[in-house]
């Protein structure tokens, strides 16, 4: 029977191989120029894998130092992922100035609310503050990605295959992290190996998705920048359209009310 630690080592090796494969694909398809922050994020992940391998071999290191270094690297990766996510959101929506401005405000609100809620769960216990903070950040990232995709769908903003794959990969990984961490929170120590292994599986799925999207990426998927109208004209037309919508809605409600009264 395969030992859990052997399984984890195999998953680790596979993750590193896939990270390198994605690195090659991004360079080959010149996607590192289109998404430089995503590329930087990947580099940080590769660096993290290499550094962790060195750390595990160094048996002289005490537990506390190891913990600090590991979380320090995790913080860097998390920061790079946040930047990659911002880059993805900007790449999808920034061509549309008005929507992008509105979306940015909404993202900030969503992210702040989610992180605040999660941090509140720590109830001032500093031991859980960092880990709950990471979970809050992961959940906020997932929420922002979903908001971007919903925004794009509502306003018919096109999302190319590569962007779509990035969004799905980020969201799945972050959501899985939250579920995984929340379920294992109380039994964290006993099931640390399983917890790490499941996290790796989620990341492997995201890597496979990104590699596939990078492999099939076509430059012609890029869309043209739409024309713009003056803000003043938008303001007038927008409020008039709202008036018409409001009247139509009122018409229906009156129809309904009168019918109810007559029943």
């Amino acid at each position, binding site marked *: 029977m395969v030992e859990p630690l052997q399984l984890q080592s195999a998953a680790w090796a596979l993750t590193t191989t896939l990270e390198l494969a994605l690195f090659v694909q991004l360079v080959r398809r010149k996607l590192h120029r289109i998404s430089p922050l995503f590329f930087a994020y990947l580099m940080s992940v590769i660096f993290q894998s290499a550094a962790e391998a060195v750390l595990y071999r160094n048996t002289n290191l005490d537990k506390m130092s190891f913990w600090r270094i590991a979380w320090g690297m995790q913080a860097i990766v998390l920061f790079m992922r946040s930047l990659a996510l911002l880059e993805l959101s900007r790449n999808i929506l920034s061509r549309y100035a008005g929507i992008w401005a509105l979306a940015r405000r909404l993202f900030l609100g969503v992210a702040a609310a989610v992180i605040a809620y999660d941090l509140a769960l720590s109830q001032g216990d500093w031991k859980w503050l960092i880990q709950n903070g990471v979970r809050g950040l992961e959940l906020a990232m997932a929420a922002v990605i979903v908001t971007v*995709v919903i925004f794009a769908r509502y306003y018919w903003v096109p999302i190319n295959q590569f962007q779509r794959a990035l969004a799905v990969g980020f969201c799945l990984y972050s959501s899985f992290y939250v579920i995984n961490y929340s379920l294992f929170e109380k039994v964290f120590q006993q099931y640390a190996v399983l917890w790490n292994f499941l996290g790796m599986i989620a990341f492997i799925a995201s890597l496979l998705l990104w590699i596939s999207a990078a492999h099939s990426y076509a430059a012609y998927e890029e869309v043209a920048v739409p024309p713009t109208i003056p803000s003043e*004209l938008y303001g007038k037309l927008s409020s008039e359209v709202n008036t018409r*919508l409001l009247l139509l809605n009122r*018409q229906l409600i009156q129809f309904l009310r009168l019918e109810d009264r007559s029943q």
Partner: protein
Amino acid sequence: MSLPVILLVLFALLLVGLLAWALRPPAHQTRPELDVFDALQQSRHSSRMSHVLQALQPEDTEYLRGSGELALMRTLRRQRRLIALQYLDQLQKEFEMLLDISRVLAVMSPEVIGIEEMERWKLSLAFAATCAFLRWKLRLGLRPFSGFTLLAKMAADIARQLDAATTRIAESTVRGSEHSALGHKNLDGQ
């Protein structure tokens, strides 16, 4: 596991579900190339509400009862209910068209008014719910009611208001086009 943590897990699952929903292919043809001015000038079904209400009035078919044509009266009322259902479909299409216009405008605008976008979103939810409710009531058999005269009057008022609103749109559009030749050019897709 405490309730707040369960809520977090549920929220994460909800996010995955929402992502899957948002990435699925659209149910109807998207209209990013929609011409705003053409769409605004299209005929409005809402202005015909008074005719539809008139057709649903019991007095319109009541005389058949007097002449002993009960079966015919029922058939006529059923057919008119079907027409009312079709009218509701058209009303919904008109509403959706207006929403489409607002989206096209938002995409082209350098500044989007968040409150108006939110207002539209709320309206679209309310409209969809009311429309669905009314459709089901009509399908189940709309009972004739006495307040139709009043309703017809109100419908006429609303139609007048709609006309005034549309005129204002046309005026502001023309003014906007005059102020900015570029804006007009862009809206024409040139």
